[in-house]
């Protein structure tokens, strides 16, 4: 993995004024994957939007870790259902529309 795709957790914590323990807790619940390179902790670029969302849930909205976990699962389910809904709509259109 290229190191340029990684963001140092220390930097994120300084930038957002949060404690590293919060990220460790997210890691323990499986919401964020932490990568260790030469004893330093990183996350992948791709995970940053999710992490920032969780930071906002916790620090701005006062949602605890269990709440974040539940919301995250529900949002994933919502995405899956939306995709399924879209597929079913396409199938319905297919059967209704006659060229």
């Amino acid at each position, binding site marked *: 993995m290229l190191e340029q795709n990684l963001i140092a957790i220390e930097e994120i914590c300084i*930038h*957002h004024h949060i404690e590293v323990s919060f990220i460790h807790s997210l890691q323990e619940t499986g919401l964020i994957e932490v990568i260790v390179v030469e004893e330093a902790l990183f996350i992948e670029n791709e995970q*940053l*939007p999710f992490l*920032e*969302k969780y930071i*906002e*849930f916790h620090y*701005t*909205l*006062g*949602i605890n870790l269990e709440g974040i976990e539940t*919301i995250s699962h529900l*949002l994933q389910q*919502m995405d899956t259902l*939306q995709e399924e*809904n*879209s*597929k079913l*709509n*396409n*199938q319905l*259109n*297919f059967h209704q*529309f006659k*060229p």
Partner: protein
Amino acid sequence: MDFIDYYKTLGINENATSDDIKKAYRKLARKFHPDLNPNNSEAKSNFQIINEANNVLSDPEKRKKYDQYGKDWQHAEEFEKAKQNQSSGQRSTRTSQNAGDYSDFFDAMFGGASGRGRQVKFRGEDYQASLQLSLLDAYKTHQQTLTVNGKAIRITIPAGIENGQRIRIKGHGGAGINGGPSGDLYITFFISEHKEFKRLGNELFLPVELSLYTAVLGGEIIINTLNGKVKLKVKPETQNGEKIRLKGKGFPIYKKENEFGDLYVTYHIKIPTGLNDKQKELFTELSKL
């Protein structure tokens, strides 16, 4: 510009403590936060107004100004200008990137988003956009320029994109607040129906009219595919509704280069109309054989 009662917005009274404000804000923000209400424009506008109320009431200076001018806010500008003329004070400049995040009322009283007191960083809002494509557009990987909130964004749309599919363009959403990161842009694609072809996933379906004579005796026909014309051999005694599969002539598979679904051709046999006497005689003769 209507007066906005920020206390009412947060459901608190004018004597509320900063703790009451925080609690009320959090409660409503949890209900209307855009991340918790994807694709819900009503929740988004509610959140904006709650945020605005919180920004004013949680900042002692702003709250004081709001309490002082309150319903007479239309005169607030005049009072402020008079103050500014007295002291050649610092002027805050407003950045246009956050325009739209605040009501006209807020802008009139506080001069836009720059006057925030609490330096809470927010990730920018995720933008939602939709794009209509024809079936032919969705057939080929192509680039398209979109204008989102006045900014031109060039995106590559991979061949095989599905109707209703949503893609994320990272960092092209609303600007972050107080140095927070930008949000993302989500584009949902809507693919219009084609007059000849029907699509289901990667498979294409094409109804083809066949003359009675070709169906009975067999022959050759030329059909359209999305990739050009194709010559087809029709076997003798082809039945109405019979389906044939043309492998790899269907729709491109999303993000798989040079991989295609199949094209299904369904024959619809056309019974001749307006037969002349001779034709009728021959059909009668045929029926007796």
